[in-house]
């Protein structure tokens, strides 16, 4: 895999003086090129086949509050124009060059995970290590958020009505972590926790955009969906593509790359 070796990789063995020089040089170079160096990758996930009818959930806890909302199983959400929501696409390459403004997750705006209408909103969230995850509760009933992480300490805190609690993750997670509410067992969400800011979750219409990716760098991406798992077969630009374990390489071009429709067959979600 072609990973661009940036200053960090190259100057490790050089003496401090040269080190400084290389740093200055690279700094000058990046500041000069910054306008053109970063671009976005976008596309849209499209469902091929007849989407299953949404399965209704009967709220049997806090019925007076949760029973009001028409709750459906959100494992697979397909829009009227066949867009697949909640598909995650993220950069898997460890050596990816990260935009200097985005390197530090703690400086990024917090990601909000709201307990609203007795469901988690959003259903799938993307969080960078160091970035704050704010768990809110906009409902009039109490919730708890049980985050089942593998490498980070798993947590399960009470989130009272109108309360909130902040969580940060120090390590990334290889597989998306589930978030559940033990009081309302139908509630489920997922968090994709990555060491860089490069990931996106497709919206209601199936479209996604990852901004500020390094131009010209071949990067390995991974695709994941709650029901479909790691999507390893789809049609891209009219051609069949296979991605072992959902892993596929893309290179973002200057001005941005639009992958167009990524068509996924219904059988992937069986």
């Amino acid at each position, binding site marked *: 895999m072609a990973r661009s070796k940036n200053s960090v990789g190259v100057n490790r063995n050089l003496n401090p003086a040269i080190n400084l020089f290389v740093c200055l040089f690279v700094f000058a170079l990046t500041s000069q090129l910054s306008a053109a160096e970063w671009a976005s990758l976008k596309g849209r996930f499209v469902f091929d086949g007849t989407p299953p009818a949404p399965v209704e959930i009967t709220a049997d806890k806090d019925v007076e509050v949760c029973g009001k909302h028409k709750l459906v199983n959100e494992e697979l959400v397909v829009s009227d124009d066949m867009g697949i929501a909640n598909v995650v696409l993220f950069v898997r390459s460890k050596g990816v060059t990260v935009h200097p403004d985005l390197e530090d997750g703690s400086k990024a705006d917090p990601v909000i995970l709201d307990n609203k209408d007795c469901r988690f909103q959003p259903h799938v969230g993307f969080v960078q290590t160091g970035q704050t995850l704010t768990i809110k509760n906009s409902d009039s009933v*109490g919730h708890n958020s049980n985050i*089942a992480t593998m490498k980070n300490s798993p947590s*399960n*805190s*009470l989130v009272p009505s109108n309360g909130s609690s902040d969580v940060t993750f120090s390590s990334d997670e290889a597989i998306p972590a589930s978030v559940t509410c*033990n*009081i309302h067992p139908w509630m489920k969400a997922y968090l994709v926790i990555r060491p860089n800011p490069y990931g996106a979750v497709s919206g209601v219409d199936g479209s996604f955009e990852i901004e500020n990716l390094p131009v010209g760098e071949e990067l390995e991406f991974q695709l994941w969906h709650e029901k479909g798992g790691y999507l390893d077969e789809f049609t891209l630009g009219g051609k069949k593509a296979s991605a072992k374990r959902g892993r596929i390489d893309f290179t973002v071009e200057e001005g941005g790359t639009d992958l167009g429709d990524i068509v996924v067959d219904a059988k992937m979600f069986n």
Partner: protein
Amino acid sequence: MNNVMAWCCAFGPVQRARVVSLLGLMCVVSASLLATGCGQTPAATFRLNLVESSKQQLTPSQEQQVATILAALFGTPDEPRVPPEINLDVAKLKLAAGPVRSDIVGRKNGLYREHCAHCHGVTGDGMGPTAAFLNPYPRDYRPGVFKFKSTERADKPTHSDLVMVLRKGLAGSSMPSFALLSDAKIDALAEYVKYLSVRGQVELSLMRAYFELDDEDEGVLPQSREFLFEEIIDPVTEMWAAADDAIIDVPDMPADLDMVASIAKGKELFYGNKANCVKCHGVSGLGDGQANDYDDWNKVVLQAQKTVDGGVKQAEKASTWDMSAEERDEHRTELAWLDRFETVLDGNALRPRMIRPRNLRQGVYRGGMRPLDLYYRIHAGINGAPMPAAKGTVPPEDIWHIVNYIKSLPYDFNGTLGVDRPMVARDRM
């Protein structure tokens, strides 16, 4: 043999493969009986975490790699060893490990197998011979999660927490008190539990690491020391080393507390929206609120069962006629995996069982009945169980009020029984 073939063919593809593997197993068993004879007991071995390896779809050679690494690091149930980087006392481990035996008059070795293995298993997987008959199931140490401790929710128990459980037992469960054992023996057993737990966590991390390999690794874990220690072992040992610093800071219960007022306040909190105890422990406090949940250990098996059931259903629907040769190969691999996974769940996992929120009217508390123990449970929640942490949401003085209310619940009465006889749990049931 013809009969066997005909018998096999009476089953569908999934079951057929299963019968074949069963026959294979029988052959292995009889072969090993022939090899060892009936008079000798074969040396004890650690059982591989086959539920995880099946979940990760590891190949036999990958399972072998994991087993080899584990044996090199931790030795065997008879000859335990740990690398110096893992802070465990080998002398204590030796006292606890191995078959029950005595080398010096009055000193017995093999304490773990004498007292623990029949429930917790030689591997510490909570699947000893008696495990299936117990409710709740014995603890599986391998995920490194312990419920009853003085540390914050996600943190490891301290050594004294484990000693406490051994000494007092866990009221209301099958875990007895081992208070008759000497301090040195209990100490050795606590050390051995840590050893099995660390070993189990390292095993899980190794198995999960295959998923993150790049294509050029060709399905083999890196052989480097850096990988093994920095990626796998250090994160585990650091957590254990940090336990003593993670002890919950409990402010004293105010000495001049008006107990009647405190109980009333605790009741309000119990039913209130913030602490929300009522949702699971029920309006009655009998533990009859939210009662269709599982603990984390059972969830693993439940999830695996779902994967297998879903996969089998899908495989039965699939038509092999319109598949390309490549797709058919994939289909076959998938079937073989599902079949093995199913066999693994039959033989290496206990049937998932729901967890019940504690009945607070009985006055029986697994993790200890001291007000301090209840404070820990409410503050940190119960790791591995659905019980969430009140920390950060409910201030310490309010936690004390809830503790006082809960301590009053077994004696709560509504006036109909007469003041001379407080209501007991039996009356409520």
